[in-house]
């Protein structure tokens, strides 16, 4: 489970907050060019797992590697520069900047007064990202003035413009209407076709069934099962946990 | 400009008709005092002296041209002072500017020097104020001279062990130097020195440190609202020995402070009761106009203003223009003037020397002590 077939691998990742084991011994591997869905009830540790990978939290134990290189101890921006992009459940857009500036900011990584590299190529990437997310006509609107679905797509446009190989998406499709969901699915398909590796957290099982190539089921910080979507979704025991009918 | 000047004249000093009767553009007397902020009490005191001197000059008809007071607020801060000074020099064309406070004086001195405008200090007493510019004069003996005069008195009263509470500015430094060097020679001893920030409010802890040094007297070298707080802080916290200080204590808020009873401080000599005609009239009119006995600062700025009137009168008689150079020449020519408190003499730098007296606060009044 490593190297060429699985660029991002977690091994025995654990963290606890004040005695509560939020994530314990999680091992997962993201297959190249596939969509892995993280499923589980609230508080299962899905977002915490993202935070461990991206360096927002420091694992108590275990490892996360990208192309066999450890990510542990790296700062979030260092992880990002290695090609891992993420979205947030609450989006965290650059609210007072325009749509174009939001995407443009995603292409600029230098912290110095100016950027190195090809400015034209960056601008082209921004236009392509806006085109793909259907935001071209809104390019000069401020993020704060967008409608809900448009904001979600702007969050995706930033990730597109960032040109990452690994996408970690936190509930990217929640609250989208059917038409938007179809556009969203197309966006992911196009990405996986370019060998982008995706991991998404999703509550809507229809969306999961439609998009995921593989499902990992988390509960109380533990991976209970990993496998084909149909197998996991049909598992009665897992369904009981998911819908809150816990067995002691 | 002309219109507003007329309006100003009317409100500040005299009726416009009087102004016209005396004829010509007024001489503008500028003041750069703190009129707001923690040192504003001084601004009020300084201005009263100026106002009374102008009133006397007008009623005596000393000058052919009328006088106008132009007050600028400095908050005792250098930057505001420079703004005010450039306004006085360039907009109001002030003939004579009165300043107070060390930092203000130092900041405006270059401006006045360039414009050849006479600046007179009657309030700040740092030793670094002598010789700032040929146009910078002092009508107050600089404080280190006051402290030196205090030493023999302390020895006579058997106040030999002295503790010093001071604000760490050039004045405080100079007083510290004198107590360190001259006090042992006079037969005393500096048993402790405590520098306090200008903004300090709590003096209980300092009092505890002072008690440890077992002094015979505590010398206070601060100014403004803080002085009262120091006195109260020391008295409340078990410091019972006599307190000594310099002329900055001559404020109403100190006189009225119960804890200040018995405070000893130096100031330049003025005998309001037994003095000459000028001094007696001053004391009487001051009481009539402002409802209280005049203090040192009132007098210093009265004298500073009076000095201008005397110099300008002399120049008018000689049919000379009144400007910085002629004023300076007139000052150096005469050197001795009849001012409130007696005859005052000025040295080459324009600093006034006067006899020092020692005062004591008793029952809300300042009394001169002898011996």
């Amino acid at each position, binding site marked *: 489970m490593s190297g060429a077939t699985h660029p991002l691998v977690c091994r025995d990742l654990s963290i606890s907050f004040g005695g509560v084991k939020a994530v314990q011994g999680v091992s997962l591997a993201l297959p190249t060019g596939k969509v892995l869905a993280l499923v589980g009830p609230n508080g299962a540790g899905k977002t915490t797992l993202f935070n461990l990978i991206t360096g927002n939290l420091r694992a108590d134990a275990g490892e996360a590697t990208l192309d066999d290189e450890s990510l542990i101890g790296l700062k979030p921006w260092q992880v990002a520069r290695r090609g891992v992009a993420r979205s947030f459940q609450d989006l965290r857009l650059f609210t007072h900047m325009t749509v174009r500036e939001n995407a443009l900011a995603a292409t600029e990584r230098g912290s110095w007064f100016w950027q190195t590299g090809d400015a034209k190529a960056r601008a082209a990437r921004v236009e392509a990202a806006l085109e793909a997310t259907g935001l071209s006509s809104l390019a000069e609107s401020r993020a704060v003035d967008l409608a809900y679905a448009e904001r979600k797509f702007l969050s995706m446009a930033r990730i597109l413009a960032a040109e990452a190989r690994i996408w970690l998406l936190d509930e990217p499709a929640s609250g989208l209407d059917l038409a938007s969901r179809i556009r969203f699915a197309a966006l992911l398909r196009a990405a996986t076709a370019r060998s982008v590796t995706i991991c998404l957290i999703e509550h809507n099982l229809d969306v999961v069934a439609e998009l995921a190539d593989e499902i990992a089921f988390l509960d109380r910080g533990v991976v209970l099962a990993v496998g084909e979507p149909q197998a996991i979704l049909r598992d009665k025991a897992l369904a009981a946990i998911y819908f809150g009918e816990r067995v002691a | 400009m002309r219109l507003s000047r007329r309006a100003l004249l009317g409100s500040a000093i005299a009726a416009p008709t009087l102004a016209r009767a005396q004829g010509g553009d007024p001489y503008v007397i500028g003041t750069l005092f703190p009129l707001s902020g923690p040192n504003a009490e001084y601004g009020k005191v300084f201005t009263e002296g100026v106002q009374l001197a102008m009133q006397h000059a007008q009623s005596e008809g000393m000058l052919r041209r009328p006088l106008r007071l132009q007050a600028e607020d400095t908050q005792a801060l250098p930057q505001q002072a420079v703004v005010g000074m450039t306004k006085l020099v360039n907009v109001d064309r002030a003939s004579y500017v009165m300043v107070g406070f060390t930092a203000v004086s130092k900041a405006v001195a270059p401006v006045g020097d360039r414009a050849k405008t006479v600046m007179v200090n009657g309030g700040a007493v740092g030793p670094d104020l002598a010789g700032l510019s040929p146009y910078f004069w002092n009508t107050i003996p600089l404080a280190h001279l006051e402290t030196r005069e205090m030493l023999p008195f302390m020895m006579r009263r058997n106040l030999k062990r002295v503790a010093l509470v001071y604000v760490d500015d050039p004045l405080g430094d100079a007083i510290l130097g004198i107590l360190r060097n001259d006090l042992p020679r006079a037969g005393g001893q500096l048993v402790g020195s405590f520098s306090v920030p200008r903004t300090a409010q709590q003096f209980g802890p300092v009092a505890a440190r002072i008690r440890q040094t077992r002094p015979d007297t505590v010398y206070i070298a601060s100014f403004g609202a803080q002085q009262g*707080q120091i006195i109260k802080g020391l008295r409340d916290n078990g410091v019972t020995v006599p307190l000594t200080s310099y002329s900055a204590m001559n404020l109403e*808020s100190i006189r009225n*402070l119960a804890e200040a009873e018995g405070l000893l401080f130096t100031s330049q000599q003025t005998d309001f009761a037994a003095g000459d005609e000028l001094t007696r009239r001053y004391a009487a009119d001051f009481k009539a106009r402002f409802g209280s006995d005049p203090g040192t600062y009132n007098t210093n700025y009265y004298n500073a203003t009076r000095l201008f009137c005397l110099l300008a009168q002399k120049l008018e008689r000689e049919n000379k223009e009144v400007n910085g150079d002629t004023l300076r020449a007139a000052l150096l020519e005469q050197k001795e003037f009849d001012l409130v408190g007696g005859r005052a003499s000025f040295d080459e730098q324009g600093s006034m020397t006067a006899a020092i007296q020692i005062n004591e606060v008793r029952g809300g009044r300042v009394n001169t002590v002898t011996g």
Partner: protein
Amino acid sequence: MLFLQLLLGGLQTGALYALTACGFALIFGATKVFHFAHGASFTLAGYLFLLMWNNGYPAWLGVLAAILVATGFGVAMERFVYRPIQRHEGGFFTVFVAAFGVSLVVQNLVGMWAGRGFVVADSTLSRATEVLPEVFLAPVFWVSLAVAAVLFLALGLFLTRHPAGVALRALAQNSDLIRAYGLSSHRLSLLAFALGSALAAPAAVLTAITTGMNEAVGHHVMLISMAATIVGGVGSLKGAALAGLSLGVAESVVLNFADPQWAEAASFVVLFGFILFRPSGLFGHAVAR
């Protein structure tokens, strides 16, 4: 003995700091308004007390008037300054500048009306006597400690027993929650301002008796209250009170080791150190990123 004297003196100052700091922390915790004009409440209360005292009114009436004016000022600030600004979605520093402007106005009005310079209520309460060899204590020491203790006890009871007090504490922790329960956060804000400002009044009265007032005194009070709120941990009244007490003690005890010119800086070194190394304060939750 010097140390003991400094410690006791520091406790007296610290008790007053604790009261104003706690008022500031209460307002900040419940409304998230950084009430920079808190010092102005203090100034107004102190001067009104002085005015009444010097005109021969009984002390209790002066204290009552001081509490009323502080409370009234706090409520007026909430109602006429902070709320309109927040309605316009003004940011943190908009509030800051507005409050700064009000402080300037109050300071100068007080200066015009009450005279500029040092004023103090003359009373024997502040006169210290030697209680132990080399240790001087004034009756006001016991008064300060008692007043602080009684007020903190009362405040504690109010915040834990009275429904409005409980709601205030809840508001400090989660303002959305309160709105969800349909409680009026506006009325709670007013309550927080009234209570917080009232807490400054006893401290102002005691200061007027001991160290005295000048019209710029609010500045210092404000700085100390803010420092104590941060050091104590935002949202924790206990923390603010304890930190206020500690700042008072630190300011005094530092004289055992250093010269007085460093006393004020010492408080701010403590503040700076806390922010760098323990930004959550004594009792706060983690705020570092």
